[in-house]
């Protein structure tokens, strides 16, 4: 900064002039020098800093715009990879699906569904550890997301951690689905029931089923599914209700007929069971067996209503013959002390002789009742000592005995 100098006045008079630049001064100040000083000031770093700040701000906006355009491009790429991944997944190319979905997740990390799809692909490819890691990372950000919890539950279920799986299923049930709330929640609960039944937690499964049983939409498939689950959970009555509802919509459904037949069979309603089972088209082995057994029960039970006394006696006689033969066979094969079996053999022999045609009383319903009791006891004793019965008639007699207990209770 040049030192301030007092203006000099020329000897001949006139305006004072600046000693630095020789220009005329006003009120002792040289405008020209002041302008020069200001010019120097504006050249100094302060102004340059201001310019730099402007450049910085402009660069910021420019970079941000470019970043946004790049992000849009990355999103497009991610979507393309996602589509490729889904396609690969559908066509069973697991590795390709994982690679593509991984790329989509990396390209657009903010898009949770890409990572969820990746986790799904990993799980489908049995890479449960990787799938779990992905899902846990997702869950960290969205702990209540039902889809994430559902996938985690599936992974844990597959890896055998039943407690963790149940916890995640319950979290999924508690979450808020983005769409089709009721359907998704119902499907999740059905999956949970399936899982509980597979892990032999029937009581818990039944309580979940009872929740499901409220406000069930009229869909044959759903009734069919619920019926099957009620059957597995040990509630044949509700199962029969659902199968009946399913049959009301699709009367010729083989699955509904078979399910209804099985439910009726387990309830001891063999007549109804036979009706449904006999109508099953293309029945499988189990259904055929069940149908035949139901028919045999109906053909062997001496206490069925509307039977003539003679018929009852003949049925009881056939049952007694079978039971005695079973007892003999059992006594011959077992090494255990056979006192109880011997006593039953004696009683059965007495019954058998009492049922011979020449000894039969004219009418004795109470005797038939007692006789059937003895036959059932003999079958049970043989089953307890020598294992499950081998002939159909033995099984039928046991079923008749069970039915009697149910009726009595």
């Amino acid at each position, binding site marked *: *900064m040049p030192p301030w100098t007092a203006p000099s006045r020329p000897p001949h008079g006139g305006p004072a002039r600046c000693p630095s630049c020789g220009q005329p001064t006003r009120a002792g100040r040289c405008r020209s020098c002041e302008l020069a000083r200001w010019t120097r000031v504006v050249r100094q*770093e302060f102004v340059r800093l201001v310019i*730099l700040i402007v450049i910085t701000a402009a*660069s*910021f906006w420019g970079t941000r715009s470019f970043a946004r355009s790049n992000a849009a491009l990355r999103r497009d790429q991610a979507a393309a990879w996602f589509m490729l991944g889904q396609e690969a997944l559908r066509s069973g190319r697991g590795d390709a699906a994982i690679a593509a979905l991984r790329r989509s997740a990396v390209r657009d990390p903010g898009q949770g569904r890409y990572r969820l799809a990746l986790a799904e692909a990993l799980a489908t490819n049995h890479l449960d550890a990787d799938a779990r890691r992905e899902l846990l990372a997702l869950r960290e950000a969205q702990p209540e997301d039902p889809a994430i919890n559902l996938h985690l539950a599936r992974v844990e279920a597959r890896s055998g951690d039943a407690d963790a799986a149940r916890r995640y299923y319950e979290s999924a049930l508690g979450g808020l689905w983005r769409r089709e709330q009721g359907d998704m929640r119902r499907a999740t609960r059905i999956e949970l029931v399936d899982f509980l039944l597979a892990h032999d937690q029937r009581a818990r499964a039944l309580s979940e089923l009872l929740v499901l049983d409220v406000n069930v939409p009229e869909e044959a498939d759903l009734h069919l599914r619920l019926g099957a689950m009620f059957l597995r959970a040990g509630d044949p009555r509700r199962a029969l209700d659902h199968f009946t509802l399913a049959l009301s919509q699709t009367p010729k459904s083989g699955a509904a007929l078979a399910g209804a037949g099985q439910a009726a069979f387990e309830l001891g309603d063999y007549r109804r069971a036979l009706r449904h089972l006999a109508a099953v088209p293309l029945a499988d082995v189990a259904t055929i067996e069940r149908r035949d057994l139901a028919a045999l029960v109906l053909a062997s039970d001496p206490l069925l209503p509307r039977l003539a006394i003679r018929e009852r006696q003949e049925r009881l006689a056939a049952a007694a013959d079978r039971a005695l033969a079973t007892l003999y066979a059992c006594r011959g094969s077992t090494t255990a002390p056979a006192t109880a079996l011997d006593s039953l053999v004696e009683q059965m022999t007495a019954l058998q002789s009492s049922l011979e045609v020449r000894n039969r009383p004219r009418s004795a319903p109470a005797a038939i009742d007692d006789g059937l009791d003895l036959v059932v006891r003999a079958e049970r004793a043989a089953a307890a000592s020598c294992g499950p019965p081998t002939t159909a008639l033995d099984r039928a007699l046991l079923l008749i005995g069970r039915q009697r207990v149910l009726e009595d209770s």
Partner: protein
Amino acid sequence: MTHTDDAAQWLRLKDHQLFLALSIIVGILAGLVAVLFSLAIDRVDAVFFGPTPSAWRMVLVPLAVSLVTGVLLATLFPDARGSGVPQTKAAFHLHQGVIPARVPIGKFLTGALGIGAGHSMGREGPSVQLGAGIASVIGRWIQLPPERISTLIPIGAAGALAAAFNTPIAAVLFALEEIIGDLNASLLGSTVIASVASVVVERSILGNEPLFRVPPYHLVHPAELFGYAALGVVGGIVSLIFCKALLGFRGWFKQLPPRTLMFQPAIGGLAIGLVLLVAPEVKGVGYEYVDQALNGGLLVRTLIVLGVVKLVATLVSYASGNAGGIFAPSLFIGAMTGGLVGTVVTRLAPFPTAEPGAYALVGMGALFAGIIRAPMTSVFMIFEITQDYQILVPLMVANLLSFTIARRYQPLPVYDALLRQDDVHLPSTLRRSSAWAARDVMTREMVFVDAETSVDEALAMPGGAAVVLVGTPERLLGVLTRRRLAQARGDGRGAVAVGEIADRSFAHVHADHALDVVLERMPAPEAVLPVVRRDRASAVLGVITLESLMRRQERTTAATAEGAAGHAGRDGA
């Protein structure tokens, strides 16, 4: 004082205020340019390759782009080759912080094109040079004094690295440890400010997404430290292989005739194109696959293939003179090495272990410490990535071992070694232990003989110096003692050119070397120690002989005696 003067004084910033403001601005601009560079690489990749590139495209894109960048690098931007970190160090230590404006421009163009076109290189090294370049340009535009411009270099570098890697603390440490070479540097405050400003800007643009998604890892069992120690040893060995191969391969490229310089990047481009056909995963920076390794998502076979192919691809890309760094490749190879060692440890160890992903994470740090030789940066970088203290102990164990092994067998850090290949010798970061430097004891009286001069002619030259310097002051080829010359004549080789028998691997010092370094390197009492320039080590500034040392000592003694006499006179008066 007039009002104008007052206003001018008010407008003037004090030195420290100006520097503070500049640190923030440089940090922001460096961060912006690093973000822009990263985005540009992404965009180039998207434009050239698209989502599913064909095999032809994989081969042709790197080749074609490298032909273009080769021309640019050979003609317009020769200083933009390679990583950028060595050049930044040279600018800081040797060129008073001067980086011409065309260097960052060239680096941006050639780097974005090269890496985006598939070259297996990193964006961090170029970002460092971009940030430093911007800092240098701004410093000169603001008309800072030269020493101030120089101090802006690490600030720009830290700002750029912080944004490129989203690790502000590691960026500061890198600037101090690698660029300045002194963790006690007085620039700590400014680098921190720049780094923070840069990261704030970067996160406001790109969001707060971490570079890698890393699950929480920790030391599962104390005995697991042996596993990490094994990783440190393997990491050290891999670091050594990488450094030696890189330097060897680059040295081979540098020996090719100068007219091939323009086409050398294209050789690398063709090689990379072929490599990409086998393993497209090594394309560009490759952090996607590092992320997978950190999450334990890669099979053993994949880890081996990617680790080896990435190493080869990086050697080819870098050695052929393309613009790009080795920071990211070292992390990539480290993650693969760590993942592999981790898988082995997990399968064989009789104690519980962490998942292979934890080893991949530590492997990244170990390779970084072994190759880049910045162990503190490495530790903090991994800490910032994981934000978890638990992994630090294993990390430090592995880093230390890798660093020690790499330093034992490759004493010169790779960035310094790369500079040496370019005839640039950086000053030591050790403090001077003596008041005298080489420049104080050297003499400029030198006798040079042409390399073609015969032994007989050299012996017949007047002067009778004990040592003959072969070459010119601008290009010293070797040194030769008179005894060696006489011996050659005695062996009947008087007609042989001195260039043939001259010692070409002679010891040398630089002008700023302390006297203890000079004495340590002095080969023999009758020998001569050339003092060469740091930025061009073949240029001779002077020589140090026993005689020049003695002369300096005599001058000092005389001066001391005069001083003592003066004092005595004044005392007497």
